[in-house]
């Protein structure tokens, strides 16, 4: 961790205060991202942050890069257009768990399948914050939401497994309780050539916390601390022990040709040989 990292140049401080509630984890995820990006010698003019719609997706507006706040669930296809049209840009997508796995679920698996060079940071608070605490595909079974007043009947996704199965070549999970680890995960994800996914488990005290009687923001972080387990430790434990734990770490780190690289090769091939009829 670059404790002294000056992240202010990356922020549009004139846009402050943010719309986020006190104790919301969104700022912690953004902080980890900015500290991560500050360790890379990327020209901010070549960085594009694309977000969807939701509390977390408002992050783009506060960041001093090329930024784009799109439609609910769709940041990945917008980002895909940006990256494919101009591969020299560093493209990062930020969106909520609802945005990513519900309305945008299809785009998520296809971006992973294509292995396009985009880093996707999922702000996973297990609920729809923006619209007031409804059920998300990441709301735990039996947990409460305004649209699951008797407890959620569904079972949530495991975002990391979903990303892996769909073909993402870098997949990691971190928590807001452990911002240093989250930062280094994001750094690795940003450096990765291919589609990289970070499941950033965060807290929404205002809705999820209140509806599920989880106490203060600090209590929610304590809950994270009590439930977190590293991938290495989890590996040696039986399934039932880890099933209600948050397993963190790097799940996938693969090399597979990145989409825009393949496209460049296609251009070269078309320039050289028999693409022309």
């Amino acid at each position: 961790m670059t404790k002294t990292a000056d992240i202010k140049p990356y922020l549009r401080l004139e846009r402050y205060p943010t719309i986020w509630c006190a104790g919301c984890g969104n700022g912690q995820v953004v902080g980890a991202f900015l500290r991560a990006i500050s360790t890379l010698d990327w020209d901010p003019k070549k960085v594009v942050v694309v977000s969807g719609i939701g509390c977390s997706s408002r992050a783009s507006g506060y960041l001093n890069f090329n930024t784009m706040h799109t439609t609910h669930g769709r940041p990945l296809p917008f980002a895909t257009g940006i990256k494919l049209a101009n591969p020299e840009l560093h493209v990062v997508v930020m969106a909520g768990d609802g945005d990513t796995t519900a309305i945008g679920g299809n785009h998520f698996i296809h971006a992973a399948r294509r292995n396009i060079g985009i880093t996707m940071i999922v702000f996973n608070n297990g609920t729809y914050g923006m619209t007031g605490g409804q059920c998300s595909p990441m709301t735990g079974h039996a947990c409460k939401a305004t649209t699951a007043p008797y407890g959620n009947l569904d079972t949530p996704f495991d975002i990391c497994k979903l990303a892996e199965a769909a073909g993402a070549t870098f997949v990691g999970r971190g928590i807001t309780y452990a911002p240093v680890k989250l930062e280094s995960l994001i750094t690795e994800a940003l450096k990765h050539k291919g589609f990289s996914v970070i499941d950033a488990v965060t807290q929404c005290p205002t809705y999820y916390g209140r509806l599920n009687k989880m106490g203060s923001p600090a209590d929610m972080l304590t809950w994270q601390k009590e439930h977190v387990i590293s991938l290495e430790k989890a590996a040696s434990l039986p399934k039932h022990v880890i099933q209600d734990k948050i397993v963190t770490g790097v799940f996938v780190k693969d090399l597979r040709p990145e989409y825009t690289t393949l496209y460049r090769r296609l251009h070269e091939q078309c320039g050289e040989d028999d693409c022309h009829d």
Partner: protein
Amino acid sequence: MTESTRLMQGNEACVAGALYAGLSFFAGYPITPSTEIAEILAKRLPQNGGKFIQMEDEIASLAACIGASLTGAKVMTATSGPGFSLMQENLGYAIMTETPCVIVNVQRMGPSTGAPTAPSQGDVMQARYGTHGDHEIIVLTPSSVAETFTLTVKAFNLAELLRTPVILLMDEIVGHMREGVSLPGEGELPVVTRLVPVKGMKDYLPYRADKNGVPVVAPFGAGYRFHVTGLFHGEDGFPSNKPQDIEYLGMRLHKKIENHKDHYSFFEEYLTEDAEIIVVAYGGTARSAQAAVESARSQGIKAGLFRLITLWPFPESEIERVCSQARAVVSAEMNMGQISRELERVLGKDASLHKVTHIDGTLLPPQKILLKIQEAAVND
């Protein structure tokens, strides 16, 4: 046919027009009867350094186009009814964020999956009002293969000039028809490319409009860092919910279209000068209408054709000018009367308006229009 004349399908002419206009990025999802556009571009774009991508659906297709356009690329997507329905939300996003793009809808018969290979003009109102919220939109509709080419070029030019999505509303007849066309050479048709800000501008405001009411938005990566959002925003691009900002932007988006009428008011008149009966038709149907007008003339009925090329914004003053001279107006379209309702609005309830509607999935036959012309000639 001359040496340079080629037999070409409407969809192929659309591709040729797009490439002529400088298309460098296409994202799409296959759907009859537009698929040839994607297929031809999948082959052509990589040959000239452009990008083609087949997305997971039409929502993603338009999203990818908008993203690419914001990096400076000239972009297009092509679809038909069901896919066009899926594009509506992001169409509004393109309007709001003033992102140039061309959306081709080769209409097929709906609702729903309908009759995929049957000609129809059922999406006229969807093209106008399909995305939510008050908005203006430019919709162009070609009647021939050659016109598909030129209108595609014009669609790009308008999108670039006004920084707005432009819809090319084709129909299955024109999309799949083959005609001999001789394509204009380089430089014969004007090609417009959006303005970009000069380098190193101080206090750059991405959404400050120039004298034309159009902002000069920098491409991503060019050095200006700014924010793009579908929320109402100020000239700085950042969200605003101040009533004055909302009204200003809303009005500007309307006016920038309204005020450029002379750039996109396209229509064609055929034998209208002395016409007592005016047939109003567009797209593939205009071909039947022309045949009907010719038959009527041969029978001594003074009929003429007003062919709409720009459907939206509706060319009210031209319609008024041409139709007010006539005894009766016959509208002909392959739907239940979408444009005829507009005619009624413009000409007034008392005008003698005869509607030819057609929804059996076949081409509207000239005979059906001729019958209405004859009826009007006798009754009015």
